[in-house]
Each structure stands twice: as C-alpha cells, then as structure tokens.
C-alpha cells in the first residue's frame, strides 16, 4: 500500500479514524491532500536529475509562451467584444464564441503528445469514490494549455463587455462561467472517448479510414475550389457578378446555419448576452438554461466513460471479444530449431554494414509501417500539415486572386508547414517502441541499422507528404517559378538530413514514451519539444537567409547550388552521427530503456 507523505491512501478508511462521507467527506479530503503531496513529491524528485531540471525549464518557458499567447488572444477578444458591445453589434458576437470554441477544442489535439499528463487510472486501487475520481479528473484538466488559453480569452471577453456595458457584469460572469464549464467538459469528454475508440483495433481502423477519407476529400475539394477561383479571375465585373450570385445562392443556407447555430453552445452564450442587453431576462435565462442542458449532456457522456474507467477498464488492454472457437489448439510434439544456418540467414549482409535492402532494414521498415497504420495520433500529426498548407496558402489569396509580392516564396513556406508535422516522427523515432526497445539491444542488428531503416522510412513518408503539399500549393496558387521550385527542392534536400541527424541524436539522448493508442494522457517531453523547435528554427533560418540572399540579388537560381552544397555537408554529418549511433545508444541504454518502458 502506498504511503504518500504520511497519509496512506489505501489505509484511509473508517477503521483508521476517517469517516468515509461523500466526495467532500473526511476520507476524500485526506485523499486529495495525499494526492497533492504525491504530485509535489513527484515534481521535487523529478528535479534530482539534470533531465528533470531541463524539463522544468522547458515547461516554464512553454508556459510563459502560452500565457503570452493567451494574453494576446484574450486582449484581442476583449477589444473585439468591446467594440461590438459599444456599437451594439451583438449579432456578430457568436463568431467570437465559435472561434473561442474552436481554439479550446483543437489546441489539445495539436499539443496532446507534447504535454505531460497524469494518468489517474493508477489511483483506482485505492478506496476512491467515483465523485472524487471525477473531481480529480476535472481538476487535473484545469492545468491544460487549452483551458488556460480559453480561460484568458473568457477573461478578455469579460473585460470587453464590462468596459462597454458595466450593467451586464452579472450576466456576463454567469454566461462566461457556463460557457467555460461546457468547454472544459467537452474537451475532456471528446478525449476520453477518442482514447476509448483508439484502444480497440476495429474502431481504431475505422477512425483511421475516416481520417484518410477526410484527407483525400480535402485534396479533391481543393482543385474544385481552384477551378471556381480561376474562372473568377477573368474580370472585376464578372467577379462582382459571381459574388452577387454566390450571395443569392448561399444566403438562405447562411440563414439556416445561423438559425441552427443559435441553438448550439457558442450561439446560446451570445444569445444570452444579447437578450440581457435587450432587457429580456427570461429569454436570457432560457438561453443559459439550454446551455446548462448541453453542459449536463456533455458531463453525462464524460461520466459514462469515467464510470467505465472507474470500474477498472484498462485502455491498455481493451476488452476484445473472444471467438467461440478459440479453444486451445493441440500443441505440436516438439520444437527443435537449429541455430540459424548461413543459408537461413537473410542473404549475406555484413553484420557491421549498412547495406540497403538487407533483412533487418526491411524488417524494421515493415514493422514501423504496420505500427504507423495502427497509430492514429501519428497519422494525424503527419497529415494535419496538409490541412495547414491548405489554410496557410489562403493567406496569399485575396478575393479569388493571388496576392503579388509574397507569392513567389509561398511554395517553400508551405513546405515548412509540411515538415513541421514530422517533428515528433523525426525527433522521437523510438518513442512508440515501449518494451520492444529491449529487442534492439538484444538482437545482433546494429543500432545504426535500426536508425537507418527508420530514417529511410521517414524520409520516404516525408517525400510523399512534401509532394502532396507541393501539388496542393500549386493547385491553390498556381505553379511557382522553376527557379523557386528548384530552390525549394534543394532546400528540402538540405533540411531533411539536418532534421534526421538532429532527430537521431534527440531520439537517443532525449526520448520520451508515446502510448500509440492514446491521444490524451501522454507523458510527453517539454524539453524535447522545445529544443527540437529551436533546431528547426535554426534550419529554417539558414534556409531563409539563402532565399533572402537570392531574392536580394534578384537571382533565385543562386539558391539551389548553395543548398546542394549545404545538403552535401548535412549528409556527411548525418552519416557520421549514424555511424556513432551504436556508441551513443549502448552508452545510454539504461536511460533509454527506463524511459521508454515506463508505463505511467
């Protein structure tokens, strides 16, 4: 039984002097104290190692960045709300709340693998009440980055309305508190259910298929959009005509959408504030009541999931229905394997060599492809930048026409986004191995061969994503100048080995465990995330400097040879690091295995 800070979680029962009570009773309160102390001790113990101190520094830095982002967003929201309230333009308020909901719900998905989260499942062996479990689940969610950003935005909106309409203070507080509660519960519920679905192979494959269909649809949608826009470039008059046509066509749809959104939480909170301004307290209360029902509904959905977890469902071993006929098969009489004869060994690769196409390289690549196809979060991380490219390329388009001066460099800029999705894949390439990492140390395959196989696979995947991103950008913005295409390809040839080299070093020196079946409640590593970002920025800075030089000298053909020379250097460094991979890996095998095999 764990004795935590003098308070024994398991022994805190009536016999030990604590009355059980409810979820705020003496037993529960003692458990909360013990848990708070446990977290503190885990934090303090974590600082005993250099890695722990580095993690703390990175986390603090990250928090400052997010707090600044939150303040900027909150200020922006506050100013926008102030002017909307001042100008009595309440009908536009739902837009702000929809944006806020989007930020609140999407940020955890984007940052899930980088945030350290505490798995409360380990507490289930203690006499913890369900109410206490739910409370702890929600309290631990409050330190989530999305909640901090969302909360700061709510505070901004509160100040905006308070400054413009001081009489609405009470209503605003009430409405924003209800809205915040709804979002907190929704984001937790979504994650809890996604984790559940990802834990089962069949649902995981269905989700993967839906995800791929989504990506393909995006690709197909894009040419269609481009075609429309392209035909719209024929003249201002025709363009204006088309806009009028579109308004006439889509206006009824927008009205319908508006009617629907009014009944959804962001619309309801805006409606409650608007009704309060119009001195309609009953209708304002009604809107808040419906919002409260949504909150209850989402809370109920979350509770169903938490109840299952509370009853002991372990997502790591999600129930799989046994086949009726899966009885024991008869064992074969005996097994007598001789040691691997030379004929049985895969076609004579040298143990110390790095021959492309040798058995272990193909085996590692094959295994990683299988694992990748069963790991939705990683597929998402790789595919999401394509969505970003789609959104990002929109910056260069205005009223259906491509904007002038920035456009020529849009292709390399979009490629940068495509590469960002591979950060986790490049910089933590061993993260999903779990206990399997032991096999790499036990088998007669050199570690550099394992890393080479992973690098080859990741480079191939990146080539596919970069090609798709290039096609996407060309369809959205038109085909770039040949010199820009050549420079972009040359830059990729430079940045890829740079990222792979740094990624190999990070994977061996700063790995962190990734549970492939989960989006939330990952351990993550702030230090890895932050330092890999710094390395990526350095690579980008070199690329930007070469592009700027070529741009300044008005000769974009200058960039490709420079990048090719840099790429040759980067390849040499990559080869050297790979050659040293065994020394690094075996020198750090204790730490690597301890980190990657850690369960919680």
């Amino acid at each position, binding site marked *: 039984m764990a004795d935590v800070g003098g308070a024994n979680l398991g022994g805190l029962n009536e016999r030990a002097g604590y009355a059980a009570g409810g979820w705020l009773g003496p037993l529960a309160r003692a458990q909360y104290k013990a848990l708070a102390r446990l977290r503190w001790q885990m934090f303090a113990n974590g600082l005993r190692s250099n890695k722990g101190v580095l993690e703390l520094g990175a986390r603090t830095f990250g928090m400052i960045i997010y707090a600044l982002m939150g303040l900027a967003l909150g200020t922006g929201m506050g100013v926008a709300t102030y002017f909307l309230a001042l100008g009595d333009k309440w009908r536009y308020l739902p837009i702000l709340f929809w944006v806020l909901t989007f930020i609140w719900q999407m940020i955890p998905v984007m940052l899930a693998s980088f945030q350290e989260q505490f798995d409360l499942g380990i507490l289930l062996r203690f006499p913890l009440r369900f109410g206490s479990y739910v409370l702890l689940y929600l309290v631990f969610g409050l330190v989530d980055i999305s909640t901090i950003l969302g909360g700061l935005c709510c505070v901004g909106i509160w100040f905006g309305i308070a400054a413009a309409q001081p009489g609405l203070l009470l209503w605003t507080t009430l409405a924003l508190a209800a809205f915040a509660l709804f979002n907190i519960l929704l984001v937790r519920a979504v994650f809890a259910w996604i984790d559940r679905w990802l834990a089962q192979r069949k649902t995981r494959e269905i989700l993967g298929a839906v995800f791929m269909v989504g990506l393909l649809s995006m690709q197909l949608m894009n040419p269609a959009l481009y075609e429309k826009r392209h035909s719209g470039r024929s003249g201002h008059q025709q363009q204006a005509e088309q806009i009028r046509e579109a308004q006439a066509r889509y206006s009824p749809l927008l009205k319908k959408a508006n009617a629907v959104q009014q009944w959804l939480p962001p619309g309801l909170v805006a409606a409650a504030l608007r009704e309060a301004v119009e001195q309609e307290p009953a209708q304002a209360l009604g809107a808040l009541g419906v919002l409260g029902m949504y909150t209850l509904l989402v809370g109920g959905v979350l509770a169903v999931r938490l109840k299952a977890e509370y009853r002991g469902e372990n997502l790591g*071993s999600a129930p799989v229905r046994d086949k009726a006929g899966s009885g024991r*098969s008869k064992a074969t009489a005996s097994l007598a394997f001789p*040691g*691997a004869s030379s004929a049985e060994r895969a076609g004579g690769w040298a143990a110390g060599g790095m021959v492309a196409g040798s058995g*272990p390289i193909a085996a590692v690549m094959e295994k990683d492809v299988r694992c990748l196809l069963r790991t939705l979060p990683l597929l998402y991380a790789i595919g999401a930048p394509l969505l970003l490219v789609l959104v990002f390329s929109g910056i260069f388009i205005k009223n259906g026409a491509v904007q002038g001066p920035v456009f020529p460099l849009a292709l390399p800029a979009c490629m940068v986004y495509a590469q960002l999705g591979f950060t986790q894949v490049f910089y933590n390439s061993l993260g999903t191995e779990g*206990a399997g990492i*032991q*096999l790499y140390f036990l088998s007669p395959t050199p570690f550099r061969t394992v890393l080479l196989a992973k690098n080859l696979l990741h480079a191939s995947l990146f080539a596919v994503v970069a090609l798709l991103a290039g096609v996407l950008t060309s369809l959205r913005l038109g085909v770039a100048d040949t010199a820009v295409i050549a420079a972009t390809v040359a830059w990729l040839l430079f940045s890829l080995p740079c990222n792979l080299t740094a990624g190999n070093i990070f994977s061996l020196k700063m790995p962190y465990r990734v549970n492939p*079946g989960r989006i939330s409640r990952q351990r993550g590593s702030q230090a890895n995330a932050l330092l890999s970002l710094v390395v990526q920025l350095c690579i980008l800075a070199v690329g930007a400097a070469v592009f700027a030089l070529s741009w300044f000298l008005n000769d974009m053909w200058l960039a490709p040879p420079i990048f090719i020379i840099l790429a040759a250097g980067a390849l040499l460094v990559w080869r050297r690091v790979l050659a040293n991979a065994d020394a690094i890996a075996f020198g750090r095998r204790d730490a690597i295995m301890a980190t990657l095999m850690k369960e919680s």
Partner: protein
Amino acid sequence: METAAIQTHGLTRRFGALTAVEDVTLSVAPGQFFGFLGPNGAGKSTTIKMLTGLLEPTAGTVEILGQPFGAGALDLKRQIGVVPEGMALMGRLTATEYLHFVGRMYGLDRETTNRRTRELLEFMQLANENKKLVTDFSHGMQKKLALAAAVIHGPKVLFLDEPFEGVDAIAAGMLKNMLTGMINRGATIFLTTHVLEIVERLCSHVAIISKGRLVANGSIEELRTGVASTLPGTEGEQRLTLEEIFLSIVGAGGQQEQAPELTWLT
C-alpha cells in the same frame, strides 16, 4: 578443459552509491540447466541484464561460449536468446507479425521465419489469437510469446528471467518439456525464477545471490549436503527441499522469527 557456456569474473554493477551486484564469479557448463535464485532485490535481474548486454557492468567480465561478451558482440548475440524482465514485446503488432520481425532481426530468411513462427504459435497455443494485437494479450500469453521470440533463431544459450510468471499450469508443463528438450539437444539455459519447485525439478545446478553477492553455487545435491551439515539433526535422515536450502542460505528463517506481528490485520 571444456569451455564454459557462461563465465563471469568479478561481475559488479553500481548505481551511484548502491552496489546492486558485487564481484559475482560463476561458470555454467554447456548443456547445463542453471537456476539463479535470490530474494527480491538481490540482484538477479541486474545480473541477467549484464549477461545479455542490456546493462554495462561497472567492473568484471562476461564470456559467452568462450568469447568476451559486450553490447557490440553481434555474432555472439545470434547464439543467445533472452526473455528479459520487460519481455521486449511490441504491443502494436500481432503475434505473427512480431515473431516475423524478431526472426528477421536475428538474420533468419523469410521462409524459415514463417515456418518457425507457425510452429511456435502452434506450440505455444497462440495460433488462434492471430487477430489480436500483443497489447491485448493476457500476461501469460505475453510470456509465452516472449519465450517464442527468444527461441525462434535456435539459440545455444538461453537466458530466462521469470519465464513462468503468469503462465497457466498446462502451458507451464509444455514449456518445461520444451526447455528440457533444448537441454537434451545441447543448449544451455540460465533461469531465474521464484518458483523453487520448478528449479528443483529442472535445474542441475543452482547459484544463490543475496544482497548483490553470490552466497552459494553448485549442484543441488552439493548445496543440500553443505546445508545439511550445518543444521543439527538433519544429516543422513532428512532430505532437504530446495526451499529449505534457500531459506537456510539467505537467512530468511531468522528474519521470519524477528518480523513483528501485524496485529491490526484481520
């Protein structure tokens, strides 16, 4: 003189101020079924990790089949099989996929890997679980799969860290037969387990480690004779069990007597 299958000299491992294993020198002859015993935290897993290249010794040497063994001894690694403490499984693969992967990592060609995978899954009674991912396996099934992976390349020396933990009685019986068969065909097995009955039935030689130091080493009969001679009234009349020998050597008998009674337990 015959070359030892496993030979250590002064094997030591320190973690900061803590000495987990100190000056362990032992020799395991080819074809021996060797039991390595010790109480919790005595240093068994640390020793097996050093013997298999998963942990670097602070001092001392390891020789396997007469050659120095370290992390980089790739050819020697082909001769050994290991079921380590963490089982080295990959949860996102099926059992078949995992065994294919392991076989190829050990240098077997595809055809041999496929054949042996089939046979091993049949033998381990895992052939019907082909659609399940390893992560969805029970602990016992995972142990069987880990053992299958350890022998797929036909190792000459097999290291097993708690291989029977969580395995049901029927499967355990089969595994014992398989291991005995390997010994009969000349393999060497180094086994750690807390189930002394298994060691007594299978192993010809035993070493006992306590607080990081080797406190006994020899055949079971030698240990029995040695312990019996120190206990009054046991000579000649009583045949000591391995459990009695073990408790006598690691001194747990005394500890049991000194342990306070937990009167608050119902």
